[in-house]
C-alpha cells in the first residue's frame, strides 16, 4: 500500500511501477478504466459460455447435456455474471475513462478508493464461480433468488452467493460515490451543469440510483442469509414472515437496477448520434429532464414484476399505470435521437452502426415492455420466454450494444490508432443478424406458452428453439471477432488518428492528444 500512497503523491514525476504492480497499485483513472473494461469483457465471455451451455441443452427437447439442477445453476450464474460482472463494470470502466476527460478533471476525486472498488470485484466473482464446484453446486434459484427457494430449499453455497453479492454491492457503491464526487467538485471552470455532456449527466443520475438501491439489495441478501442459517423468518410464513415481501424488497432494488443498466447507455448514444450526424443533439434539456424523470419513476414501478403474486386490484392498477408512464420519457429519448439525425449529414462508421442498431432494437424492447405493463395481459406473458425476449432486447441489443458502440467510439482516443475497421464491421453485422435470430423468436415461443427457466420443453416449441440456439451460438462466436479487434488495438496496430478522431466529434476529450496521455487536464481547461 505504501508504494501506492507514494505514487499517488508523486505521480507527475512518472516513476510508475511497471508490470503487474502498475495495475495492482494504480490510482490512475485511465488504468482503472482499462481494468474494469477488461474484467467486464472476461466476465462477458464467461457468462456467455454459460449461455452456450443453456442453449445447447435447449437445442432439442429432452435432456441431453446437463442435469436440471446444473441447468438451474447455469441460468442463475449466467444472469448474475452478466448483470453484475459484465454490464455494470463495463459502464463503470467507461465512466472512469471518460468522466474526468469530459469534464476537464485530472482524475477521479477519490483515486485510492477507485483502486479498491475495482480490486475487490475479481474476488466477488471468484467466490461466486468457485461455489459452482461445491458439493451440491452453486446457486440454482435464479438471479432473482426468490425466497423460500433461496432460503429453506437452497444448498449451502447460498452463503457464498450472499458474500459475493455483498462485495459486488460495496464495489458499486464506492464506484458511484466516486462518480458523484468527481462530477460535483471537479468540473473545469465554465463547465456548468447544463453544459455537461449527456454521458456525464446520465452517469451522475445512475450513481444516485446505485447509492439508493444497492443497500436494499444488501439487505435482501442478508435476510436470506439469516433466514437460511440463523433461524430468522423474514420470508417464512410459519414464523410470521412473508415470501412475497422478499419480492417487494428485491424488485425495489431490481427495477431501478434495470435503469442503472440503461441510463449510461442513453448517455453513450446521445454522444455518438450527434457526432455522426454532424449536428447538435436535439433537445439537450429535455434529455436531462427525461433521464431524471425515468430515474424517479423507476422507484414506483417495482411491482410490475409481481402482478401474479396476488396483489390487491388497486395496487395492480397503480403499478400498471406508473409503468406505462415510464414509456413517455423513454419515448422522448428515442424521438430526440431521431430528430438529431433528421436533416443531419450522416455517415455510418462502426460506432454509429451500433448506435443505430441500439435505437431500433432498444425501441423494440421498450415496446414489448409497454405490452408487459398491461396487467391483465402480463398474466399471460409473465415468466414466459416473452419476458426473456423483452429483457434481452433492452439488455443485449440495448446495453451491451451501447457498450460496444462506446468502445469503438473512444478506442482510437485511448490507443491513438484506428482499430481494424473491416473486422469491426464483420463484428457488427454478425452480431446484428445473430442477435435477432437469437432473441426475436423468443417472442413467439413465449406467446405460444413456453415458460422460462426450464431445461426441457413440449414438442411444439422445438423448431423455434433450434433456431434460437443457432442464433445463440452465432452471437457467441461473433464476440470472438470483437476480442480480436480489441487485442489488435491494444497492440497499437493500425493507422494513427488525429486528436479529434471523428469529423464532427465535439467535447473536451477530443481536444487532448491521441492517444490520451497518462495524465490529462493537470491544469483545468476553460470551457466557454
Amino acid at each position: 500500500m505504501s508504494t501506492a500512497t507514494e505514487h499517488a503523491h508523486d505521480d507527475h514525476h512518472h516513476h510508475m511501477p511497471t508490470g503487474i504492480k502498475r495495475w495492482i497499485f494504480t490510482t490512475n483513472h485511465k488504468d482503472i478504466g482499462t481494468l474494469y473494461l477488461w474484467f467486464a469483457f472476461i466476465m462477458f465471455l464467461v457468462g456467455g459460455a454459460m449461455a452456450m451451455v443453456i442453449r445447447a441443452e435447449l437445442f432439442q427437447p429432452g435432456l441431453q447435456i446437463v442435469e436440471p439442477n446444473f441447468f438451474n445453476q447455469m441460468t442463475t450464474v449466467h444472469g448474475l455474471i452478466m448483470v453484475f460482472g459484465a454490464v455494470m463494470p463495463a459502464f463503470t470502466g467507461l465512466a472512469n475513462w471518460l468522466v474526468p476527460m469530459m469534464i476537464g478533471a485530472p482524475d477521479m476525486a477519490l483515486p485510492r478508493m477507485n483502486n479498491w472498488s475495482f480490486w475487490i470485484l475479481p474476488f466477488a466473482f471468484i467466490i461466486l464461480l468457485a461455489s459452482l464446484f461445491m458439493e451440491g453446486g452453486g446457486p440454482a434459484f435464479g438471479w432473482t433468488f426468490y425466497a423460500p427457494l433461496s432460503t429453506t430449499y437452497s444448498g449451502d453455497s447460498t452463503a457464498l452467493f450472499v458474500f459475493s453479492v455483498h462485495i459486488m454491492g460495496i464495489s458499486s457503491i464506492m464506484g458511484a460515490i466516486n462518480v458523484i464526487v468527481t462530477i460535483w467538485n471537479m468540473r473545469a471552470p465554465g463547465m456548468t451543469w447544463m453544459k455537461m455532456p449527456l454521458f456525464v449527466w446520465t452517469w451522475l443520475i445512475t450513481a444516485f440510483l446505485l447509492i439508493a438501491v444497492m443497500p436494499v439489495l444488501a439487505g435482501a441478501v442478508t435476510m436470506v442469509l439469516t433466514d437460511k442459517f440463523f433461524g430468522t423468518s423474514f420470508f417464512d410464513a410459519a414464523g410470521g414472515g412473508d415470501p412475497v415481501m422478499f419480492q417487494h424488497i428485491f424488485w425495489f432494488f431490481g427495477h431501478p437496477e434495470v435503469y442503472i443498466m440503461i441510463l449510461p447507455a442513453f448517455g453513450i448514444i446521445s454522444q455518438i448520434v450527434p457526432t455522426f450526424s454532424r449536428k447538435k443533439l436535439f433537445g439537450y434539456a429535455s434529455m436531462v429532464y427525461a433521464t431524471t424523470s425515468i430515474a424517479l419513476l423507476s422507484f414506483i414501478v417495482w411491482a410490475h414484476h409481481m402482478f401474479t403474486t396476488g396483489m390487491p386490484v388497486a395496487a395492480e392498477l397503480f403499478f400498471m399505470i406508473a409503468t406505462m408512464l415510464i414509456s413517455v420519457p423513454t419515448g422522448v429519448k428515442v424521438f430526440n435521437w431521431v430528430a438529431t439525425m433528421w436533416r443531419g449529414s450522416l455517415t455510418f462508421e462502426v460506432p454509429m452502426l451500433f448506435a443505430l442498431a441500439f435505437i431500433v432494437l432498444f425501441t423494440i424492447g421498450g415496446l414489448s415492455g409497454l405490452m408487459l405493463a398491461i396487467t391483465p395481459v402480463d398474466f399471460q406473458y409473465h415468466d414466459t420466454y416473452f419476458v426473456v425476449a423483452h429483457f434481452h432486447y433492452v439488455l443485449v441489443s440495448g446495453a451491451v450494444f451501447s457498450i460496444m458502440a462506446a468502445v469503438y467510439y473512444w478506442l482510437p482516443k485511448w490507443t491513438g490508432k484506428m482499430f481494424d475497421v473491416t473486422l469491426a464491421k464483420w463484428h457488427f453485422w454478425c452480431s446484428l443478424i445473430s442477435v435477432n435470430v437469437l432473441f426475436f423468436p423468443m417472442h413467439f415461443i413465449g406467446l405460444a406458452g413456453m415458460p422460462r427457466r426450464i431445461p426441457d420443453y413440449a414438442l411444439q416449441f422445438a423448431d423455434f428453439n433450434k433456431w434460437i440456439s443457432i442464433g445463440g451460438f452465432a452471437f457467441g462466436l461473433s464476440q470472438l471477432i470483437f476480442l480480436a479487434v480489441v487485442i489488435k488495438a491494444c497492440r497499437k496496430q493500425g493507422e494513427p488518428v488525429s486528436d479529434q478522431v471523428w469529423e464532427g466529434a465535439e467535447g473536451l476529450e477530443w481536444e487532448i492528444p491521441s492517444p490520451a496521455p497518462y495524465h490529462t487536464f493537470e491544469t483545468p481547461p476553460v470551457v466557454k
Partner: protein
Amino acid sequence: MKNTLYGVLGSLLSVTAFADSGAQKDQYQLNLSKGVTDISGQVYDLHMLMFYICVAIALVVFGVMFYAMYFHRKSRGAKPAHFHESVKVEIAWTVVPFIILIFMAVPAAKTLIAMEDSSKADVTVLVTGSQWKWHYKYMDRDLSYYSLLATQPEQIQNKFAKGENYLLEVDRPLVIPTGKKVRFLITSDDVIHSWWVPDFAVKKDANPGFINEAWTRVDQPGIYRGQCAELCGKDHGFMPVVVIAKDPAEYEAWVSEQEAIQRKAKEEEQKLLAMNMSMEELMSVGERVYNTSCAACHMPNGEGLPGVFPALKGSDMALNDMPAHIDIVVNGKSGTAMQAFGKQLSLKELAAVITYERNAWGNNTGDTVQAKDVNAVMNGQ
C-alpha cells in the same frame, strides 16, 4: 428494414389468429391463443390492441429514422441543419403518447377488475403446489388427489420416442364443469409455484402460507394444458397442469364416482391393517411408488444428489433405524424439501416404498414394513 419486419410479422400474426381456432397446438404457433373463456378472449383482444399500437409506433419512428438515414446521408451531399430544439414538437411528443396510454389503460383496467372478481363461485377447488406436483381438493366435496407428470422418464432421457403431449400430460387431471364459475384457491406446501392454464388466462402464484384466488368459466368441453410458471427448483420444468372441462352432468357423475372410489379405498386400508403382505408384493409396489414419488430427489439409483438431496443407498436410517425411517416418510422433515408423504400415499404404498428403500440397491436389510407399522406411526404410537 426492421419496420418491414414488423409489417410482415403483423400479417403473420393475424393469419395465425384465424388459423388458431382449433384446440390443437401447432408447431409454428406465433401468437397468444384466444383461449376458451370470455376473459381469455378479452385478454387476447387487449394483447392484439397493444400489439398493433406498438407496431404503428414502431413504423412511424423507424420510418422517420430510415428516411433520414437514406436521404440525409453525407454521401448524398446532405448539409447539416442547425436546429436543436423545438418546444412545440417536444411538447407534442410528450402529450400524444400520454393520450395513447389512456386508450390502453381504460380497457385494461376493465378486464383486470373483471378478472379479479372471484365472488359467487359455483365450485371451489383448492390447488396446492409442492415440489413437483399439484394437489387438487374439491372444497364442497369429499374428493382430493395429487396430479403428477405422466411422461415416462425414458422419453425425457431420449430412450423412447416422445409422445404427442410430451411434458404436458399428468396421471390425474383436474376436472371442472363447463358453464359454471369455478374458483381456485391457490397455495403451496414448500416453495413458490405458479398455476397457469393459458387457455383460461389464469396464472396465479402459489405462495406457501398464503392463499391466492383466481377463477374461470369454461364454455367448451375439452382438455386444457398448462405448466408451472415460477421457478420452483430442480424439476420446475416437469410439473404440468392439465384440466378437463366436462359438461355438468358428466362432471357430477365423475365426481360421485371418484368419491365412491376414494371411500372404498379407505375401507380397504382398514382391512389391510390385519394382513401381512409378502416381500415380493411390497417390493414391486414399492418400486413403482419410489419411482413416481421419491426418485425425483433421491434419484432412481438411491444415491441422491450430493449436497442437495441425501442418498438412501447405504444410509444409516435406511439400514438401521426403522422407526425414524417410517417417521420421516410419513411426516416429512420440516425446513427441508422432504415432504410428508403420509397424506399423499396410501398405507399400503407407504409400507411398500419403505420396504423397497430398505432392500433395494444393496441395502438388503431383509426388513418388511407392513401397513399396520405405518399406521402406528401415523397415530403417534
